[in-house]
């Protein structure tokens, strides 16, 4: 009787499966364990994670504290390693503080005011001012609201026409309430010192619940500043970014420039088995993916030298070469997934911290190396533990064996393994022959897209948003979850949660401090999962399906960490529904759900 442990090292998680195997081949599964993968999959650093996963499996067995493992079977880790990158393909440059579009919560007044920008002191001293001119007052934080209102009222009484104001403090309403003539006021302008004095400007504030109509319209801006057709074209990014705001300021500066230019993001050189293609990154993800799908089999990908994509791909290959102790030339990219997305980029020259959403392409690549890196891992494990370690067979075969322990499955069977770094698929027919494929793009790419589209700048927060639903704290005693259900609390919530969007993680509330609507978070989260997992599920299944036709697959089992996600499986089932395939989440050994397929398969394969 032996104790066998199966170890599956994945891109994100390492899983263990421990079982008692009798001499006549009967298997009694004892327990499973899980830990975060340490280091890049296939390198010695993985050992730490493997030990953690084993410890996790063993500690749950209370009557076998000193369990002695006779043999550790570790997966071959089909030497595929994934990496991701994000590249902007447009860049908007605004110089010389041309606009203010931060949309403060409480602007003052209402309407559109067009005039020359002057500092408050000029209004109090009445210097350099003309009665026939219109003016916009600039109020820095050295002035309080009372004196500012007094000075503006004073100037008005002398016949100076003030039609709007730009204020540094959050005092737009306070000032307007004290004015004899009401004017539109944009406040909370942090970098007020950058407002170009004595230029022509327009201040617009819409009514509560409405958005501005003139400054968000390029022809509106053209009318105010008498722009030529060419200048109007240039102003489009400004107008675009002001759509939907309740207040804004646009300033015509002599040197001011607004440019939206396309960065030559570079070309991708795709080398296939029988043909090769070149595609420009800025043609977008759809074009890139359709070209890739037309190629028989991708053998390698290179990026154009001296472009962003070129250096990104070089970096990936270089990193992989270093980590796996290989030479650069031996690193080949076997798959690439491109996804259209956008990245909020701070506007240089913005007066209040505005950002623009720049178009970007997110790319995940799958790198294949010649050497078998798991040998080093096995050796290191043996040194540390003293147990026999054997590198067992192909990962795809193990996944299928494990998946077949799901009650209700039979051959032929397709397995979709949704992981952190790759989306893998394998199909086993009645004769036991297996075809498999590994595609770039999985959980980690989804997290990256969520992080960038919501401008979180916090990978951990993006990960939590990916995994859990969100809710709005509507009162101190209840929250409204995204599916409209309400959850009540017996004790009042802390003030810091009030009114916020929170992540509902088990019984914990994680507040999101970024100013983003709940609906937008849900929309972006779902879209990211569709763009990566549904896309890759269909791609992978088409590759392994008999005659590349999905209708030839009768049943599919979903396994892997990302199959546990609360939405992804359902999204995939929905996409597969029209093919009339029996698809479902695996339930390994009838108890583990979609996890532990490969680790279980490793144990089973020992007996076969």
């Amino acid at each position, binding site marked *: 009787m032996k104790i066998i442990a199966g170890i599956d090292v994945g891109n994100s998680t390492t899983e263990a499966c421990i079982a008692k195997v009798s001499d006549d081949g009967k298997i009694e599964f004892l327990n499973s364990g899980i830990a975060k993968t340490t280091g890049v999959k296939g390198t010695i650093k993985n050992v730490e994670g493997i030990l953690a996963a084993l410890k996790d499996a063993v500690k749950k067995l209370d009557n076998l504290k000193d369990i002695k493992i006779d043999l550790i079977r570790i997966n071959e880790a089909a030497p595929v390693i994934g990496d991701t990158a994000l590249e902007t393909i447009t860049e908007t440059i605004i110089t010389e503080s041309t606009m203010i579009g931060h949309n403060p*919560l*409480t602007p003052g007044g209402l309407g559109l005011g067009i005039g020359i920008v002057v500092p408050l002191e000029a209004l109090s001293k009445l210097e350099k001012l003309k009665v026939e001119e219109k003016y916009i007052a600039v109020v820095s934080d050295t002035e309080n*609201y009372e004196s500012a209102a007094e000075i503006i009222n004073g100037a008005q009484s002398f016949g100076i026409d003030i039609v709007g104001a730009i204020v540094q403090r*959050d*005092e*737009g*309403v*306070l000032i307007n*309430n004290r004015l004899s003539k009401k004017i539109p006021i944009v406040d909370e302008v942090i970098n007020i010192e950058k407002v170009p004095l004595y230029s022509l400007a327009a201040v617009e504030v819409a009514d509560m619940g409405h958005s501005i109509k003139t400054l968000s319209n390029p022809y509106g801006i053209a009318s105010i500043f008498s722009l030529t057709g060419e200048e109007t074209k240039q102003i489009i990014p400004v107008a675009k970014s002001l759509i939907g705001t309740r207040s804004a300021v646009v300033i015509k500066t002599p040197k001011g420039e607004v440019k939206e230019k396309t960065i030559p993001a570079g070309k991708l050189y795709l080398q296939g088995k029988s043909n090769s293609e070149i595609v420009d990154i800025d043609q977008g993800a759809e074009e890139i993916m359709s070209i890739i799908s037309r190629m028989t089999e991708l053998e390698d990908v290179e990026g154009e030298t001296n472009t962003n994509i070129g250096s990104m791909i070089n970096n990936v290959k270089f990193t992989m070469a270093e980590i796996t102790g290989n030479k650069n030339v031996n690193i080949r990219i076997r798959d690439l997934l491109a996804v259209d997305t956008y990245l909020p980029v701070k506007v240089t020259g913005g007066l209040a911290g505005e950002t623009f959403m720049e178009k970007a392409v997110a790319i995940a690549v799958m790198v294949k190396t010649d050497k078998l890196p798991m040998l080093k891992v096995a050796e290191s494990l043996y040194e540390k533990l003293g147990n026999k370690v054997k590198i067992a067979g192909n990962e795809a075969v193990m996944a299928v064996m494990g998946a077949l322990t799901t009650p209700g499955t039979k051959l032929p069977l397709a397995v979709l393994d949704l992981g952190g770094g790759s989306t893998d698929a394998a199909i086993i027919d009645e004769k036991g022959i297996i075809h498999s494929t590994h595609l770039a793009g999985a959980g980690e790419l989804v997290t990256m897209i969520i992080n960038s589209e919501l401008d979180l700048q916090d990978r951990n927060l993006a990960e939590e948003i990916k995994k859990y639903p969100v809710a709005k704290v*509507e*009162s*101190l*005693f209840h929250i409204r979850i995204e599916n409209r259900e309400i959850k009540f609390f017996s004790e*009042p919530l802390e*003030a*810091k949660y*009030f*009114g*916020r969007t929170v992540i509902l993680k088990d019984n914990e509330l994680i507040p999101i401090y970024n100013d983003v609507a709940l609906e937008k978070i849900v929309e972006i989260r779902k879209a990211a999962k569709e763009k990566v997992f549904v896309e890759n599920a269909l791609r992978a299944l088409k590759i392994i399906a008999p005659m590349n036709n999905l209708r030839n697959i009768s049943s599919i089992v979903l396994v892997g960490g990302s199959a546990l996600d609360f939405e992804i499986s359902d999204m995939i089932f929905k996409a597969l529904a029209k093919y009339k395939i029996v698809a479902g989440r695996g339930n390994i050994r009838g108890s583990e759900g979609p996890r532990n397929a490969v680790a279980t398969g490793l144990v089973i394969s020992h007996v076969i």
Partner: protein
Amino acid sequence: MISGETMNKKPVIAVVVNRTADIIVKEVLAGIEEQGVIYEVFIKASLLGATDMKAYELSQLGVGIVINERDIELQVEKIPDAKPLMKVTANCNYARKLGTNAALYVKGIPLIDIKI
């Protein structure tokens, strides 16, 4: 004599002043006004028989502020007797922000961090 039952409650934030009216009081009121919410000021001394009343009981919105010599409290109906929702030292900066938070609470918008 004013008592809770006979008082006409209005949809305002009730601001109970328990110190000499000064710049601190003005800052609290400015914070509320900027948010577009209405307030009503009550001088503690003139509340006579209603001295045991909580500030929020004077407000139909169930939100009240008590401005004392040393500190300022934001009280809300939903958390009775026990703790105020927020309590800060009475200085100009905190006073303005507490007034703002009282109004944000009424509007159902996330509160700002006062310590910043």
